[in-house]
């Protein structure tokens, strides 16, 4: 009954507000303390999207926006080229070779990781694929 009244009045106990704020602030803190997580996520994200369209890796931007009640990730991923439709579904097949299906421009600019993308589920292969500059995942 009290809970129902509170809901009706639109108030929530301040301890809930504290809990919410704490949750958000810690997510933000943990992200800020682990830049390599963001780098790895950025790389994986671009890898996945590269399976469908050709993107400009240099201009990829990832931001985290703190709103009142939520933390949101904003990714800006410029697309350079889109494959002609009907050329097959490269994504979910077992052994697609996106490089072969991509237009010549894509082949020229695509990073080595694009070719290896279909193996993204395999951690061993993912490790091998890692760019030398990428920080080996030390997430804790």
């Amino acid at each position: 009954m009290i809970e129902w009244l509170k809901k009706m009045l639109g108030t929530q106990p301040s301890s809930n507000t504290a809990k919410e704020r704490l949750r958000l602030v810690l997510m933000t803190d943990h992200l800020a303390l682990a830049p390599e997580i963001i780098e790895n996520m950025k790389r994986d994200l671009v890898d996945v999207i590269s399976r469908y369209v050709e993107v400009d890796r240099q201009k990829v931007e990832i931001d985290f926006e703190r709103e009142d009640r939520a933390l949101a990730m904003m990714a800006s991923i410029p697309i350079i080229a889109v494959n002609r439709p009907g050329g097959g579904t490269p994504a979910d097949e077992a052994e697609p070779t996106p490089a072969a299906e991509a237009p010549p421009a894509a082949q020229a600019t695509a990073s080595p990781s694009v070719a290896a993308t279909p193996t993204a589920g395999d951690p061993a292969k993912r490790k091998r694929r890692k760019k030398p500059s990428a920080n080996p995942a030390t997430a804790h």
Partner: protein
Amino acid sequence: MHELQPMHDESPAAAPVKLGRAIVVTSGKGGVGKTTTTANLGHALARRGARVALVDADVGLRNLDIVLGLESRVKYHVLDVLEEQVTLDEALVPDKHSEHLMLLAAAQTREKDDVDTDKMRALILQLRERFDYVLIDCPAGIEMGFKNAVAGAEEAIVVCTPEVSAVRDVDRVVGLLGNKFKPQLVINRLRPQLVKKGKMLSVEDVNAILRLPLLGVIADEPEIIVTTNKGEPLALREEGATAGAYHAIAARIAGEDVPAPTVESKESFFDKLGAFFGGRRP
């Protein structure tokens, strides 16, 4: 992280003496009750017959001597020992109330950067040869003072109040300490009535986030102010819920299987505290 290595397991051959346990009491945030907790746990452990050394690592802002009521007896401090001006024995101050308890005070007129981390580590090891417990009262913050306080420790007690800022800082400190220090949590200044009304984070709320072994919960206790005024820590008393809570923490530290104020026993624990605050006190 790598620069914070606990002092673990010297080979038995090198150390024939059984070393005591060095436990740093830390929190990140200031004013949450590190010094109060150190003093009370020191007495609670000594009351059990253990030999206890309390080290004030808050160089520049020394407080532990005041809380213990030993300020008039302090002649030398940690830095005097580190800089070999005096011996450890000359600097250790025996407690007024307990023959098992001794204090190594901090220097009030020096700075945290004056402490040599390696020498501090060696000093704590020296104390561990002579005491069962070495409790180190850590300064607030995560800078040099924190690093020096942590240097010789092998375990950590983190003190947290049920507030957003305190929990956030403890989370950071625990991240810095890593698992090696086996951090255990003391929640301080809890007000059960406020928790019931939804106006304060509960023990469960705090530990849902921190996920640390819960050593104990200390209520927000007006008597703490009185005992600090007098320089007679509450844990010296045999009676009372808060004194009992300190004694229980000490027993838990000593490895006794005391029923912890866990999530399961929440109701009865809070009810007891509630009754205590509700006027059933003598």
